[in-house]
C-alpha cells in the first residue's frame, strides 16, 4: 500500500491536461508591472525611481523586515512609474511599472545550460543568499524561504521534506519541473540540507506522476540521503501537515509548526529556485506556471517572467476561449478567481485555470441533511457543519473551542457537500473574527 495521510481527504477529477507539454519560455511583454507585495509578510520598499535604467535580475525593492523578501526586475528597460495596480489577490497594491528595452541581464548571472553540482557555501552563506535573492515558497503560500531555513533556537531540524505532490487538479508545473530539471532540483535540495544541517531529505510525489518518481529515483542514486516516496493520490496531500503525516507519520501539533516535529517543508519549485540562486547567481524573477482549462486550445507550461500580464500567458496558450466563465490563479480547489486578465504574473502564481461558463457558477444551496460527509473528509478532523453554523450565529468563543483556527482552507468540505453549502466561506469569516479576538487577547 502506498503511503498517504490518514484522516479525511477527497478525490477531485485530476484533469492534468498539460502533463505532456514541455516547459516553454514566454518572452516578456512591452511593459511589465512588478508588484512589491508578492510574498507573505511586509511589502518590500521600492529602491528605484522613475526613469531609472534597470537590468534583468537587478534589485528593485528591498525586503522590509525578517518576514519579507527582496524583489528583482524580471526585464531590462526604464522604470516608467511606481503605481498602484490590482494584483492576483484582487487587492490594490504598489507595483513598479517597467518599459522593456532589450533583454540585458546582470553580468554575474550564469546563463549557461551547464549544471553545477558542487558548492562550497556555509549554512549562513546559503541562507543569506536565499534571502538576498528573494526566494519564497513557490507552492503557492509564498512564505519567505530564508525564514523557514532559519531554525529557531531550541528546535532541531531532522528531515527536509520536499513537496512534489501537486495535488491540485489541473496543475502540472511541478510535474514538468521534476521531469525537466530533476538534477537541478536535487542539487537545490542538497543545498537546503546543508543550510539546515540535516542528512536526510524525503521527496513526496503522488503516484499519478510515475514518470517523475522514476526519473528522480534514478537521479537520486548519486545523491546521499535523498529518498523519493510515491504517495497514494488524495487531496490535500500537498498541505504541509498532511505531507509530513504521509511521509514521516508524524502529526504537527495543533497551532504548531513543522519544525515542532523536526521537519522543514519546501516545494520542488523552491528547490529549483535555490539551485539557481546559489549555483547560477540568479535571483527569483521567473517561474514555471501552468496555463490550462478544458476549452483552452493549448494547455501549456510556461517559464514566465514576473510582471507580465496573465492575458499574455493565456494568449500564448491559444487565446481566451469564448465560453470562459471564470479565470483562476492557482487550481480549482484553493485558487483565487481573478477580476481582470491584466493582473501581473507573481511569484506565487503556479497556475492559471480557465473554467468554462457552465462550470463557473455556484450551485444552489440547500438545507443541511446532516450526511456527515464534511466531517469524514476534513483532513484536520474538524466538523465543518458546526463551524459554519457557529459562524452564521457569530458565536466566536465556541468557534475557537471547536478549533476553527486549525482549518487549512483546503475546501474538501464545500467540495463534497451534497447540499452545495458554502461551508468554507463561513469558516473563513469565522477564522477572520476568531483570529482578531486572539490577537487582541495577546496584545
Amino acid at each position: 500500500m502506498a503511503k498517504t495521510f490518514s484522516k479525511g481527504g477527497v478525490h477531485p477529477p485530476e484533469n492534468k491536461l498539460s502533463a505532456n507539454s514541455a516547459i516553454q519560455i514566454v518572452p516578456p511583454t512591452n511593459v511589465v508591472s512588478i508588484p512589491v507585495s508578492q510574498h507573505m509578510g511586509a511589502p518590500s520598499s521600492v529602491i528605484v525611481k522613475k526613469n531609472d535604467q534597470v537590468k534583468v535580475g537587478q534589485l528593485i525593492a528591498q525586503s522590509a523586515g525578517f518576514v519579507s523578501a527582496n524583489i528583482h526586475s524580471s526585464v531590462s528597460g526604464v522604470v516608467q512609474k511606481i503605481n498602484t495596480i490590482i494584483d492576483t489577490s484582487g487587492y490594490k497594491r504598489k507595483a513598479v511599472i517597467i518599459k522593456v528595452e532589450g533583454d540585458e541581464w546582470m553580468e554575474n548571472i550564469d546563463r549557461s545550460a551547464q549544471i553545477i553540482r558542487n558548492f562550497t557555501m556555509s549554512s549562513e552563506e546559503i541562507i543569506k543568499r536565499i534571502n538576498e535573492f528573494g526566494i519564497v515558497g513557490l507552492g503557492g503560500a509564498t512564505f519567505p524561504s530564508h525564514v523557514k531555513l532559519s531554525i529557531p533556537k531550541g528546535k532541531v531540524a531532522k528531515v527536509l521534506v520536499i513537496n512534489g505532490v501537486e495535488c491540485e487538479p489541473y496543475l502540472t508545473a511541478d510535474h514538468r519541473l521534476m521531469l525537466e530539471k530533476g538534477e537541478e532540483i536535487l542539487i537545490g535540495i542538497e543545498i537546503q540540507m546543508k543550510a539546515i544541517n540535516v542528512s536526510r531529505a524525503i521527496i513526496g510525489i503522488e503516484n499519478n506522476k510515475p514518470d517523475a518518481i522514476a526519473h528522480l529515483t534514478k537521479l537520486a542514486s548519486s545523491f546521499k540521503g535523498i529518498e523519493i516516496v510515491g504517495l497514494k493520490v488524495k487531496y490535500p496531500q500537498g498541505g504541509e501537515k498532511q505531507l509530513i503525516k504521509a511521509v514521516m507519520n508524524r502529526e504537527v501539533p495543533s497551532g504548531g509548526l513543522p519544525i515542532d516535529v523536526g521537519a522543514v517543508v519546501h516545494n520542488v519549485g523552491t528547490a529549483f529556485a535555490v539551485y539557481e540562486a546559489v549555483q547560477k547567481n540568479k535571483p527569483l524573477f521567473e517561474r514555471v506556471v501552468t496555463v490550462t482549462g478544458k476549452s483552452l486550445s493549448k494547455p501549456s507550461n510556461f517559464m514566465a517572467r514576473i510582471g507580465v500580464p496573465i492575458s499574455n500567458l493565456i494568449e500564448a496558450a491559444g487565446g481566451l476561449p469564448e465560453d470562459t466563465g471564470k479565470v483562476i490563479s492557482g487550481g480549482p480547489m484553493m485558487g483565487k478567481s481573478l477580476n481582470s486578465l491584466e493582473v501581473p504574473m507573481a511569484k506565487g502564481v503556479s497556475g492559471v485555470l480557465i473554467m468554462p461558463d457552465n462550470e463557473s457558477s455556484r450551485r444552489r444551496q440547500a438545507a443541511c441533511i446532516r450526511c456527515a460527509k464534511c466531517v469524514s473528509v476534513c483532513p484536520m478532523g474538524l466538523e465543518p457543519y458546526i463551524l459554519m453554523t457557529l459562524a452564521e450565529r457569530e458565536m466566536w468563543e465556541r468557534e475557537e473551542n471547536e478549533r476553527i483556527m486549525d482549518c487549512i482552507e483546503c475546501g474538501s468540505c464545500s467540495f463534497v457537500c451534497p447540499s452545495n453549502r458554502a461551508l468554507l466561506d463561513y469558516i473563513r469569516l469565522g477564522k477572520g473574527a476568531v483570529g482578531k479576538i486572539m490577537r487582541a487577547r495577546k496584545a
Partner: protein
Amino acid sequence: MKISPSPHNYGKDSVSSLMYGVIVAMIPAMLVSFYFFGLGAIIVTLTSVVSAMAFEWLITKYLLKKEPSLIDGSAIITGLLLAFNVPSNLPIWIILIGSLVAIGMGKMSFGGLGNNPFNPALVGRVFLLISFPVQMTKWPLPGNFPMEYADAATGATPLGVMKEGINNGEPMADILQNIPSHMQMFYGQMGGSLGEVAGLALLIGCLYMLFRGIITWHIPVSVLGSIAIFTGILHLASPEKFADPLFHILTGGVLLGAFFMATDYVTSPMSQKGQIVFGVGIGVLTVVIRVFGAYPEGVSFAILIMNAFVPLINNYIKPKRFGEVKVA
C-alpha cells in the same frame, strides 16, 4: 467574468443523487415483498409513497407557504420505509394516517428535510402500532404472488412465536419446529411487515449503498455486531431460554433497521465514533426490548430512543482532531 472564493468545483453527489441511490437500494426488498405478499404489498406500497409525496407537497405549499419541491426524493424514501414497516393487509385509511403522521408530525413540523430529530417513517409506524395494535400485528403469510389483500390468511411472526413459546415454557426445539428455517428467513419466506422479511434483498441493497459511498459501515456493523454479541452471550448461558444470534438478526426489522433506518442521515450522529455508539445503543436496546420487554419486537423503539440521544452524542463525541497533542 465570475468571481467567487474557492473551491471552484463540486463533488459528484447531490442531495437527490444520494436519495435516489437509497431508493434504488430498496428496490430488491420491494420486489421480494411483491412476490411473497402479492397484490396487498403493491397496494400498501403505492398508497404509502403517493400519500407521503402528496402530504409533503400540500404541507409545504399551504402550511409553510414555500415553493414545494419533491425532487430531492426524501418523501419517496419515507413513504417506502413506512410501507416496509407495516403488514401487507393494512387498510388504506390506516396507511394514510400513518403517512400523514410520518410526514406532518415526524418531518414537516420540525421544518422539513434536515431538521427532524426522529426518523419520520418510524414515527408513523410507531404511531400506528400504538393506535391500531390489532391491525398492525396481523401478519399475512407469504405465498407466491397472492392476489388477496384485506382477506389474506394471517399468522404470527417468528419473533411472536418465539416469545410466546418461551413465555409458555415450551422447549426450544419445539418452538423452532413452528418457525421457518434460518435459510427460509434469509430469503424472506416468513410472516412480517412487508419490507423486513427479505434478508438477502436488504443485504444486497446495503452493499449497493456501501459501494456507492452513500452510507458507511459504522452503523450497520455496530448494530448487528452488538445484537449478535448480546444475544450470543444469552444463548450460550441458557440455550433453552434464549434464541440464537442469527435468529435475532434475521427476524423482525433488524436488517431493515440497521441498513435503512438507523443509517438515515438526518437522525444519526455526525462523527464515526458517535455512529458506533449510536449503533451499539440500538443493538442493546433492541435485545433488551425483545428479551425482557412486553413487545416481541424492539428495533423501531430502539432506533427512536437512540435518535433522541443524537444531539447529545454529537455534542460529546467529537472526531479525533489532527495534531491533538500538546505543543512541545
